[in-house]
């Protein structure tokens, strides 16, 4: 007798490492990252794809991990905040956020940093309008965005490649 809801074998690539998994089709990427792979840097907040806290990069582009099937990332390169940098080894985007006070509670920060990395990889010298446009889907309830935008523009001006 076949299972009514067959499992699916996938191989994700998470922060450069191959991760073979057997998944239920309905499993969401955010849950797989946080609960199965012990990568809690990816935050779940609105759970309807609006706030951007759960942003990860898939093949370099921002994705809403709370509303994406994990099996849809089969064979693709997933970057979470754990793959970007950490204490003592900050990514230039994280360093710029730190220097400009571009975070307060920090809950939006992993998604925000990943979105900024994606923006600067495509457009190393964005205008303020382009920064605002690209980050439109990442909500921050502490900073009022001004410090974040200053951090990104300053980083772009300094020419440090994230």
């Amino acid at each position: 007798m076949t299972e009514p809801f067959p499992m699916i074998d996938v191989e994700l690539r998470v922060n450069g490492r191959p991760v073979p998994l057997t998944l239920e089709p309905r499993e969401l990427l955010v849950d797989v990252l946080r609960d199965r792979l012990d990568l809690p840097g990816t935050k779940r907040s609105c759970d309807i794809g609006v706030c951007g806290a759960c942003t990860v990069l898939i093949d370099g582009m921002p994705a809403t991990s709370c509303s994406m099937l994990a099996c849809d990332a089969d064979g693709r390169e997933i970057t979470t905040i754990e793959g970007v940098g950490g204490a003592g080894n900050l990514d230039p985007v994280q360093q710029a956020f730190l220097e400009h006070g571009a975070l307060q509670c920090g809950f939006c920060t992993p998604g925000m940093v990943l979105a900024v990395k994606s923006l600067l990889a495509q457009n190393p010298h964005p205008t303020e309008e382009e920064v605002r446009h690209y980050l439109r889907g990442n909500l921050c309830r502490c900073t009022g965005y001004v410090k974040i935008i200053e951090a990104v523009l300053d980083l772009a001006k300094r020419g440090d490649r994230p």
Partner: protein
Amino acid sequence: MLPPRFELHRPQALGEAVETLARHADDASPFAGGTELLIAMKARVLRFGHLVDIKRLPELRGVRGREDGGVSIGALCSHHELARDPLVRERLPAYSALSENIANIRVRVAGTIGGNLCFAEPHTDPPALLCALDASVELAGPNGRRTLPLEEFLQGELSTARADDELMVRVEVASQPSGTRAAYRSCGHLERPAVGVAAVAVPHGAGHAWRLRASGLCGRPTALARTQAAMSGLPADEALQALLAHVGEDAAQVEAHDDLQGSAEYKRHLVTVLAARVARIALGRPERNA
């Protein structure tokens, strides 16, 4: 929140996809970007025992130039892909600009034009402009393919002419006559547009023939019929005067309701403001009155 359990099908060919949809009828849904579907399933607004992942079907991919000078758009094209596509930029610049302005970067990368049109959510940007451009859609089903105007395909809020066992293959936009200009603008204070208005102006007589479509405040894009008729063939200044004289009357006829996006009265007012704005842009004038 997890969606309820479902079986995921991953057909490699269009015929196999249609067959799978037909076998499971209203218990199956095509699945591409998932930007609408998965959120609706998580919220238990929609429930399907089978999702048919159509992302491996080559017929649904890519932008192609049509021999008539128009554009054929694969249903799987993402908004991000359309915003950057050189052919769309050249032949349909207003649609390229619209695509770059949908929701946010994550939605634009994952969301497809086919999914957008098949979901038929009224509070979204592409339908008004594609209707004003007189786009048509090609559907594939168990009995072959059919093509119908997008304005017939979109039947109302979350309602289309697509049968359960049909897939949208492509969106076809025929060549626009030389000198045609188009524009779209929307307004809203939530994630989605409360109201959008599109204008397409085709050189005609001493001015243009106009196609004006309003969306968001009603179930499907609606023509601003009196206004566009009154503007027809008039030189630019007179056409704009005719718009201002008639658009309020058209807006009053649109079936609008009070909702989270605003009162019906407010949204009808937005129609009049945005219609004047898109008409000015299509005429090559500054977007706002001085």
